[in-house]
């Protein structure tokens, strides 16, 4: 019979090695993020020497400049508006659809389920150009007929596009949950005289709360962080912008103007809300992922 355990010193070496690797990975993740936080309170002159020095003092002016001069404050409002509106719209549209597709058999239900599944394989960024052209052509037509277009550079339209393109993943995740419920819930409700609508809103949706929270978390992160669609549909130089696009512009401007402090303050402004949210809900997020499976 072979030895059951490795030798003690070999075991200790292995343990040491594991901790060493884990800590190295932790450092490569935490140090750059922490570095940006420290850099955001440094003065511009502090960026020309050793990058590992601590800030000489806390220079809040970076945040004031980023918020006002670089308009990150306005962009923050835009991002909050677009994200919130897209989330509300997505839930209002996706919840009933997912419920019906998962629990009712009707003509075409199989086809519709397959269609939304196929949508999981269409990446939004593959189709951003035709979406842009469609809205642009719509604007041209509106201008001809009504004298003014409103489809491009419109935060509401952006939110609608976000919500629509998130539908396949959201419906996939929610239907997965609805399919696991027993049919007894509805039957009991129907016997008590509840209609389809009441049953759905009062009985089923409250039960789906954990899945709904997962959906909100994932989509919040993807809407808040998205920048390609936003950049394409909100391309007017003077028009409204979302935070990531504003940050991208700030980073590009920084290459010529070298205002490092403001740029890092902008980075902090963009990532702070997601980090705070993450710290509050990190358990739900990682558990929800285990339950929901995949991100599209």
């Amino acid at each position, binding site marked *: 019979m072979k030895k059951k355990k490795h030798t003690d010193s070999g075991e200790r070496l292995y343990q040491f090695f594991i901790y060493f690797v884990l800590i190295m990975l932790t450092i490569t993740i935490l140090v750059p993020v922490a570095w940006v936080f420290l850099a955001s309170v440094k003065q511009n002159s502090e960026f020309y020497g050793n990058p590992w020095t601590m800030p000489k003092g806390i220079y809040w002016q970076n945040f004031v400049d980023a918020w006002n001069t670089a308009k990150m404050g306005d962009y923050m409002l835009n991002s909050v508006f677009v994200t919130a509106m897209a989330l509300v719209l997505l839930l209002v549209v996706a919840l009933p659809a997912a419920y019906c597709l998962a629990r009712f058999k009707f003509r075409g239900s199989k086809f519709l389920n397959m269609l939304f599944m196929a949508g999981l*394989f269409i990446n939004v960024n593959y189709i951003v150009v*035709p979406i842009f052209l469609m809205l642009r052509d719509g604007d041209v037509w509106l201008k001809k007929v009504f004298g003014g277009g409103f489809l491009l550079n419109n935060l509401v339209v952006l939110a609608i596009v976000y919500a629509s393109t998130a539908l396949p993943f959201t419906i996939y995740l929610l239907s997965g949950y609805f399919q696991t419920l027993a049919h007894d819930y509805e039957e009991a409700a129907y016997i008590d005289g509840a209609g389809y609508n009441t049953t759905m809103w009062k009985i089923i949706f409250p039960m789906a709360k954990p899945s709904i929270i997962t959906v909100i978390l994932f989509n919040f992160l993807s809407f808040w962080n998205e920048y390609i669609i936003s950049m394409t549909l909100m391309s007017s130089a003077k028009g409204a912008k979302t935070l*990531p696009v504003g940050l*991208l512009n700030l980073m590009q401007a920084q290459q010529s103007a070298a205002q490092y402090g403001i740029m890092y303050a902008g980075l902090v402004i963009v990532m702070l809300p997601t980090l705070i949210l993450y710290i509050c809900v990190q358990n739900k997020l990682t558990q929800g992922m285990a339950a929901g499976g995949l991100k599209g």
Partner: protein
Amino acid sequence: MKSSKRRNGFLVACIAPAVILFFVFMILPTLNVFRMSLYEKGAYSQTETFVGMKNFQVLINDSNFIRSMQNMILLIVTVTIVTFALALIFAAILTREKIKGQNFFRIVFYIPNILSIVVIAGIFSAIYKPENGMLNSIIGLFRDMTNPILWKGESLVMVSLIMAMVWQAIGYYMVMYMASMSSVPESLYESSNLDGAGRLTQFFQITIPLIWTNIRTTLTFFIISTINMAFLFVKAMTSGGPNGASEVTLSYMYSQKDAGLYGYSMAIGVVIFLFSFALSAMVNKVTDREPLEF
């Protein structure tokens, strides 16, 4: 009869909004990608002229396009292999070994996944900066830095992109595999311990085969999302530069749209669609195994 009418009304009211939005903003644009690839359409003219396969004929002789395909394939292959190998190993360590602070590591490793790619691009520009960058200042401890390493220079830019993409993706997949690995019954490891199997044998003979279904689905999704992620990283970190050295197919498509060549841009879009379908079908076929039960 009345109740069936009511049921149908309810179903239509619930499903129609989703179908309409999905059709207008996903199906229609997808069909348009394929349709417009056969047309010549410019930014400043309202007219479209049908040109058949001409856009594709130009495409196969476009050296910038060929390079962007090569870069994309390079990123897909290397990022996938490195991310999956590391994510599986770390997940196995964190679930199998009794690690102190397991939860802490899990929380930290997931952080890159919640950051916007723009933020990550900003963080990595601080890491890769030639003068006073984080990476060069550390390497400078070991070697002379009179000629700083240009991480975003033509020769290294792809390596820099790969490192950033792995950094971003690893935690997400690790957390996912931890979830599926923790459902592998402990008794299997105990009995293989009795048979004298080491950690490596257990990893390859028990852990990997038992979560193979999970690996397989995530692999397909990862490859598809890497096509997209490569675009997001390139656009935010390098804009395809220097001199197109880091251009990937999607970013090339986007730059052709910016240049106003809509038909041509959509021909690239068609190639990307077909490429991603073919690739996921291939991965699906290659990774097909008998599913194991536990």
